[in-house]
């Protein structure tokens, strides 16, 4: 009897279905890259490079996933990331302490999250407007702090930056015969911890499920006894906090503050979330999907570059095309489901 029960497979939920599609497409795309472009894509280091370059994008994509599941949007994440980088670099260069710089990063992110969350949830202002204002504010602040790029000169921090995790068994032997182990930056570890933590939050913690309920049907969530205002508030607070973490990870990767850092990152994060199966309408999405969404987006860009199309607009054009393709795919798949149910 128990066996029987385990054998009956439940059809996938919308969230699981969209996530599986993303993972499938990522794998197919990567295989295509290996077959046609070969070389670099065969090495594990290729994946680690993608992770190293995009750790902070993964983190803000997670932030967007949470907010979008709750039916909102946060476009301040990129600008907050940039503000955090600039503030921390300046602080460290003035002889600051690494531990305090981490607190500073978290504090800036948290501050943005609290204020934006309050305005959106309790004063009921449109999230797009609030976070647009937050974005301009953070960008402006970054420029006020310094118009010129600032390179980190803090010796302790530079040491932290140089620390890489080496994974020998994924390495390869270079043409000159030297063995090169796969290298992963500390920021990637932070990003992966964020992914795992948010996965647990969304699946096993009450607050996380409440995000889904709120995004699925706000009126219902209210009737089911969920404190919708508080739930929404928390979604923006978490998003702000993740932007702060993203800023620190960004700084660990580049080591320099620049007013144009992380430009357009919020849009890439939205794109990653959508490709990862998060619906802009809310209630559906998953952080594992978002992780693979980010990788998919990066792989496309790599493929474009590797094909010799070096101009940046080719990346934009392909990203735009992919996004259209995914949204179309989502609505076709979900539409087909709805039809099947009705018949």
């Amino acid at each position, binding site marked *: 009897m128990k066996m029987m029960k385990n054998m009956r497979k439940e059809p996938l939920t*919308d969230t699981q279905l969209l996530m599986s599609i993303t993972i499938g497409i990522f794998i197919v795309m990567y295989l295509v890259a290996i077959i046609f472009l070969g070389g670099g894509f065969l090495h594990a280091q290729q994946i680690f490079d993608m992770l190293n370059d995009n750790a902070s994008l993964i983190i803000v994509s997670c932030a967007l996933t949470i907010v979008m599941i709750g039916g909102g949007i946060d476009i301040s994440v990129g600008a907050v990331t940039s503000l955090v980088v600039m503030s921390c670099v300046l602080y460290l260069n003035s002889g600051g302490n690494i531990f305090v710089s981490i607190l500073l990063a978290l504090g800036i992110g948290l501050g943005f999250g609290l204020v934006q969350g309050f305005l959106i949830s309790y004063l009921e202002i449109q999230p797009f407007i609030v976070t647009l204002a937050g974005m301009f504010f953070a960008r402006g602040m970054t420029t006020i702090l310094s118009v010129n790029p600032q390179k980190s000169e803090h010796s302790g921090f530079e040491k932290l930056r140089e620390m890489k995790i080496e994974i020998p068994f994924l390495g390869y032997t270079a043409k000159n015969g030297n063995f090169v182990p796969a290298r992963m930056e500390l920021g990637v570890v932070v990003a992966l911890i964020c992914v795992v933590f948010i996965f647990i939050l969304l699946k096993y913690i*009450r607050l*996380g499920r409440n995000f*889904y309920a709120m*995004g699925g049907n706000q*009126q219902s*969530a209210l*009737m089911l*006894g*969920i404190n919708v205002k508080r739930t929404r508030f928390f979604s923006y607070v978490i998003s702000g906090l993740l932007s702060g973490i993203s800023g620190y990870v960004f700084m660990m990767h580049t080591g320099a503050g620049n007013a144009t850092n992380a430009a357009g990152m919020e849009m890439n994060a939205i794109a990653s979330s959508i490709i990862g199966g998060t619906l802009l309408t809310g209630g559906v999405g998953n952080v594992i999907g978002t992780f693979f969404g980010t990788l998919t987006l990066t792989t496309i860009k790599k493929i474009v570059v590797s094909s010799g199309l070096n101009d940046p607009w080719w990346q934009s054009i392909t990203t735009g095309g992919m996004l259209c393709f995914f949204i179309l795919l989502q609505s076709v798949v979900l539409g087909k489901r709805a039809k099947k149910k009705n018949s």
Partner: protein
Amino acid sequence: MENCLLKMRHIEKRFPGVLALNNVDFTLRKGEIHALMGENGAGKSTLIKILTGVYQMDAGEITVEDTAVSIRSPQDAQNKGISTVYQEITLCPNLTVAENMFIGREGGNWVRHTEDEKRADEILKLLGIPARSTQQLGSCSLAVQQMVAIARAVDQNCKVLILDEPTSSLDDKEVKMLFDLMRDLKSKGVGIIFVTHFLEQVYEVSDRITVLRNGELVGEYLVEDLPQVELVSKMIGKELDELSTLKESDEEDISKKEVLYEAKSLSSSEAEPFDFTIHKGEVNGFTGLLGSGRSESVRAIFGADKVTGGNVTIKGKNAKITRPIDAMKHGIGYLSEDRKRDGIIAELSVRENIMLALQVMNGFFKPISRSESEAFADEYIKVLNIKTASRETPVGSLSGGNQQKVILARWLLTHPDYLILDEPTRGIDVGTKLEIQKLVLKLAEEGVSVTFISSEVEEMLRTCSRLIVMRDRHIVGELTGKDLNQAQVMKTIAGGEA
């Protein structure tokens, strides 16, 4: 009474300018299904909202199992064992069945999926609900979703279960499933308040009926003591024997005139197939209780809902009407029941609202000149006696009756051959009502055909020469000539022998 579950005594609720509930009593016993009946504005939803903590009563007392309680919020009501399942499902379709049953309730910070799912499966099995706990709610039928909402209430130890129009979006088979569940809960001692407008369902499942009218209690009856005809007359407020026959319409034989519009087994996503004919210059009407399908039928004629079948001929020629614009091109105008939602655009001026339909008919590339539209607006403001500060006043600031006249002007301007008026007199004062009725008769004299719908039977009798009676989404009779009197209408509505 020892098995008395819920008592509401001398309940009073006042809204600005209206006494919504006046000294209403309501009693619910353990293990009974109690139907709460009344037409629009009778006060049933106010009573329900007081019971669920959405409104606070101004006077009166509520006792649950002989303890006086005050209900401050919907959450509070649930804690006191009063749960409500609403017409629109208030669950989240993107979550699983189990999650929907347990989300938002007391408990720690962690979601215990396996435990919740086990518990949910037990309840679903106990209540015989055909759903699995791990299923996404959105993949269940509406009826099952509704049952899951009930299961949630049951698991919250509800003693009083309020079902507010639960059957309005269910088909016959699903209704049967729901009724079985209701009977099952009843045998477990739950008291159920059943609000519906389907008379037959009331008789199928209820034990007792409480009737409200105009915010006052008409009475509480055992189902077997109250035949359907009497229930209808109590709801509408006229005793059958004191009904006097009203004025007959002049016996000019309208059916000899040319047929303007004819539909054969027309159906839409909302309306069951029906046949319908209207002659040139005829005023006819759809009547029936709220929810009997009268609005849905006329919406099908106008193409306002998705038309799913049927043949339509207009002036003897085949016509295909699938969208409102098709209907408009065939000279059909439609004044909707809900003027806030389908009719007026509150932010636009009186003139702009009047010009809307004509502009759509002309197409957007043939603009109507400003001076022309001002002239039209002024003319109709005068003809219909619309009370507005100027033709540029936003419609939203006008009174309900005048808003209605603006929409009427909009359609008259397109010179329709056939005008459908759905509840044109709802919520407007008696004087304006009469004006609109007179206008309808005048239009008919000029050769316009009119279909008129109103909840007030008297009004229909005054204006229509033929009444089509609907019950539970089907046409159950057509009354003309000397059959056009209130007693006959009521009998037909209730389903008594003619």
